[in-house]
């Protein structure tokens, strides 16, 4: 009985530790994000913002005054300060384009390859798999293009675990 109370207590302490380890660093970033620029410079730091604001978020999303920073960007006499130019609409659009095309390309190319590796018998299948894994895992350092191949690996894992279900 006594040991179970101890156990609960120790678990609670551990959980609190884990919680603060995971959340504390990130929460400081969140807290900073709702401070005014002036307040972020205060020494010692304010753990709780004295006048919290969402201005930074508005500035980030609109990209400055009225969203003109995007249009102004690259012009000879731009009307922005460094903080006001996030070019959020442009960057966001780029991210969307990149992620959609990566997902479509990797799935349309990776899924057939994974199907062949998982379900079909053919000579050189093991060699092919080793080549995929080692090229993606190690030698891609020379190319820095991991995305596609880790996804092939993943879909291979998914497919082969599926085939275990079928056979068993």
């Amino acid at each position, binding site marked *: 009985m006594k040991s179970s109370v101890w156990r*609960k207590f120790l*678990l*609670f302490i*551990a*959980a609190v530790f*884990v*919680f603060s*380890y*995971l*959340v504390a*660093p*990130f929460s*400081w*970033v969140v807290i*900073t994000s709702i401070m005014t620029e002036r307040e*972020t*410079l*205060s*020494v*010692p*730091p304010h753990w709780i913002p004295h006048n919290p604001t969402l201005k930074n978020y508005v500035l980030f999303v609109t990209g400055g005054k009225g969203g003109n920073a995007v249009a102004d960007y690259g012009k000879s006499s731009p009307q922005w300060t460094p903080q006001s130019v996030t070019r959020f609409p442009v960057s966001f659009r780029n991210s969307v384009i990149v992620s959609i095309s990566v997902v479509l390309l990797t799935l*349309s*190319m*990776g899924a*057939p*390859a994974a*199907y*062949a*590796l998982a*379900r*079909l*018998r*053919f*000579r050189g*299948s*093991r060699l*092919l*798999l*080793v*080549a*995929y*894994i*080692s*090229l*993606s*895992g*190690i*030698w*891609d*350092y*020379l*190319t820095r*293009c991991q995305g*596609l*191949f880790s996804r*092939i690996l993943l879909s291979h894992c998914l497919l082969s675990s*599926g085939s275990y*279900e*079928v056979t068993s």
Partner: protein
Amino acid sequence: LDMQTEVQSRMKEGFRSLRLSESSFAFLLNAPTVLLILLLVAYPIVYSIWLSLHSYHLARPGRFPFVVLSNYLKVLSSPEFWDAAKITAIFAFFSIIGVVILGTLLALILNESFPGRGVLRALILLPWAMPPVVNGLMWVWIFDGRLGAFNGLLYSLGIIDSYRIWLSNPVTSLPIVIFAYIWNRVPFSAIVILAALQAIPLELYDAAKVDRAGRLQTFRHVTLPWLWQAITIVLILQTMTAMRVFDEIYMMTGGGPGSATTVLAWLTYRTAFLALDFGLGNTYAVIISIITTILVIVYVATLGHRGEIRI
């Protein structure tokens, strides 16, 4: 289940009617990926090795002499390389140990039942959701010498009596970068190990209880053997990424102060993109890849049978 087998047999019939053998169908399915790999991976690799055999400096355009292995000899005889190799080894050793041990501990805690476990299991994804570059940026802000929260915390607790410049101090910069790196990478290992923990049959624990095994004995003889495979996977992946750490170094220290955090990847970047010596830079890159390959082969050879890694 029937659906799946039916679809499968139909597909097989499909390519039989196309008069394709099973293996040529398989190659057909792999062709786009192989083509893309040849284009995007194999070509750059070969090109990189090719460059490493040449003297190729962007500041001296037009000259591209074939120098065989002299780049490699130059690298292997330079103290810069061995310094960076030593720091990479220290970085990799401590970050791998940290990620594996902390990941196992987190997984063991999250495997117990306590109120709020679901919340913690969700929160463990938080560091993982952060790209390494953003992670570096976050820790720079926390460890900032003038405005940092870490300084503020220690100061208000009375642990230090004046602000320290943590990242510009050769003694503290490397441990801090390792700490930041571990924070970002630990969720992955925790999740992999947690999944392995949940696969352990509960009867084994009952059997251990019947045999009057203590808690430590149960952990050593029941839990740990079941975790080996997951831990081996984490070890291999962590070694590969830790050997090539770049983002955190780039954001937090820029290899400094001096060369206190200059790892091989940073040296590669500096040589190729700041000093513009592409021949030498590619030599570094090839050397890192060779070292990583050897390490992975050693892992698979020594731990493979234990964790039953089959490729």
